[in-house]
């Protein structure tokens, strides 16, 4: 792949704001978040449950349930078009065609009363003018591409006849059927067995590189991030708190929240070795988004918090080259490391 092509930006999200109107008040699920994805690049979005990762993804394809959710600001530019300005029909032509999604739950994400093949055929025929026979052939080819054995027979089967791993492969086949420019994988391996997780991740990355697709990988598993992504953004309480290349992030995490996430990763201990080390945790809970503290949302849980943290929200600064963090004390941490 040429250098110029690698650098081509597929998706550019600027100042995205998605809010939810609930009985307990309005909350900002995605608050002024910006990021971009280049062709063939993998961007990981990490954070705890409820930090706004999935809502960010759903906002890109405009599938945030409305009501209660609504995108109230920003832009989502895919290959030069602002998706937030498209009408519904034009947006449908983008979904499943230029942007595809893979969801967390392969067991429930496929329609139980439709054959696997038919579900892929539908994705193909919604966006391409091909005969049903040709579309079926493409569906079988896609199943072969995601390494499902006996794809001709599997295409005839129903979701309940496939294992979880196989269903996720079928989801991937469906998502990539129209060769999208961008694939969004929302916790694609969380619901799978550990052995299957590695296979599915390897498959996604392999296909993404072969097809030159941009990939947004949403996960809470930093191990997955280290294996697959080139760049990472860390989200907390609806805001982007850190962005860096994978190397830089793992070498010197500059936000206390990222440090907490890394410390709470269990390390594999060699058989027979004794370890008294307790698994670290981040004290406290993610704050309720309807009732955020003034200043930094992480301050109540942060060991490094000073008075300023509780009063003013820190700007997202480029603390080191290509490494941004929103923390008043990021500079100190960068110097200390």
């Amino acid at each position, binding site marked *: 792949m040429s250098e110029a092509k690698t650098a081509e930006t597929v998706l550019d999200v600027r100042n995205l704001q998605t809010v939810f109107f609930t009985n307990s008040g309005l909350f900002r699920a995605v608050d002024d978040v910006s990021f971009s994805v280049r062709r063939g690049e993998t961007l990981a979005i990490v954070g705890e449950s409820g930090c706004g990762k999935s809502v960010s993804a759903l906002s890109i*394809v405009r*599938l945030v349930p409305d009501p209660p959710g609504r995108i109230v600001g920003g832009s989502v530019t895919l290959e030069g078009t602002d998706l937030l300005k498209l009408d519904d029909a034009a947006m449908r032509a983008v979904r*499943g065609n230029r942007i595809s999604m893979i*969801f967390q739950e392969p067991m429930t*994400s496929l*329609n139980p*009363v439709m054959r696997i093949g038919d579900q892929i055929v539908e*994705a193909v025929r919604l966006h391409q003018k091909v005969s049903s026979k040709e579309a079926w052939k493409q569906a079988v080819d896609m199943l072969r591409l995601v390494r499902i054995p006996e794809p001709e027979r599997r295409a005839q089967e*129903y979701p309940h006849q496939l294992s979880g791993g196989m269903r996720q492969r079928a989801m991937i086949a469906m998502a990539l059927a129209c060769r999208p420019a961008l694939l969004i994988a929302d916790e694609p391996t969380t619901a799978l067995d550990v052995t299957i997780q590695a296979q599915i991740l390897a498959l996604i990355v392999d296909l993404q590189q072969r097809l030159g697709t941009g990939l947004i990988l949403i996960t809470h598993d930093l191990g997955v991030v280290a294996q697959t992504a080139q760049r990472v953004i860390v989200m907390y309480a609806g805001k982007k708190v850190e962005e860096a290349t994978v190397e830089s992030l793992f070498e010197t995490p500059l936000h206390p929240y990222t440090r907490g996430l890394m410390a709470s990763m269990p390390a594999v201990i060699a058989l027979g070795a004794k370890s008294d080390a307790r698994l670290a945790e981040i004290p406290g809970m993610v704050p309720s988004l309807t009732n955020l503290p003034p200043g930094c949302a992480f301050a109540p849980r942060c060991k490094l918090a000073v008075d300023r943290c509780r009063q003013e929200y820190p700007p997202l600064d480029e603390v080191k080259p290509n490494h941004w963090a929103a923390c008043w004390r990021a500079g100190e941490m960068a110097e200390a490391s």
Partner: protein
Amino acid sequence: MFAYIVRRLFLMLVTLFGISVIIFVLLRVVPGNIVDILFDAAGFVDPADKANLERELGLSQPIVVQYLHWIGGLLRGDLGYSYVSEKPALEEILPRIPITARLAGLALLFSASIGIPLGVISAVHQGSKLDYALRVVSLSGLSLPSFWLGLLILMASVSLFGTMPIFNPNPKTWLEALTIYAVPAMAVGFRSAALTMRITRSSMLEILRQDYIRTARAKGASEASVNYHHALKNAVLPVITVIGIEAAFLIGGLIVTETVFNIPGIARFLVEALRWRDYPIVQNLVMFIAVVVVVVNFVVDMLYAAIDPRIRFGD
């Protein structure tokens, strides 16, 4: 699947046998038989005459013998003679079946074709004014007894058009046939339509929350395709069950509706026969209705399997 069908068919036979025993015994537990009724009306009569008539009709035999006689005849296709008209029971029952079948069929068609789409619309627009309006209408459908609704329709048509649909066994035009059957069918089907709508609505609301609906949207499917193709196909299973059960309830509703609209169908005929303790007619008619209900249930199960592959390939 084949073993399942065979097992179901066997169960159907057992059910029908059980029903035949229950009908037979219940009928004879009810005090008085046709002879009592006839002789009561006539005042004092010689008990010997009464015993003679009972013997003639076979009512003096032990109940087990009477049962075997009936079942034996049924298996040979001999339904016996009506006590009242003295015509063969088959000749009395057969011409009335198509009338009721048309009414019941139309009523079910009405309830499915009105109830399912309205249920989908109500679910898709949950919380809207349209949803509330539809729910109020459906609640009224569940609360209005069909005979009262039938009377209201008759009174309304008299006051509006100065006439009302009167049953004609040989309608001249297609339109006339439709009015004769459609109006009572709607009166009796309104309740089923309302029930179907409510079940469709709640089932759709449940299905629309499923992950695969989001997947369908993420594929770029239109709202119509999401609602009718992806969601309804999953949501329709409980609706089919309800329509199957309603098919059985319909017979009860038809008894009053046929009376109100003066339609000579089997439902009204059954009540008349019961009043005269016309055993051959009642037994055979109830048996016929039982067969219909059992077959409808079987068809519902087969439809389930046809729609849901998890049932088809399970087992």
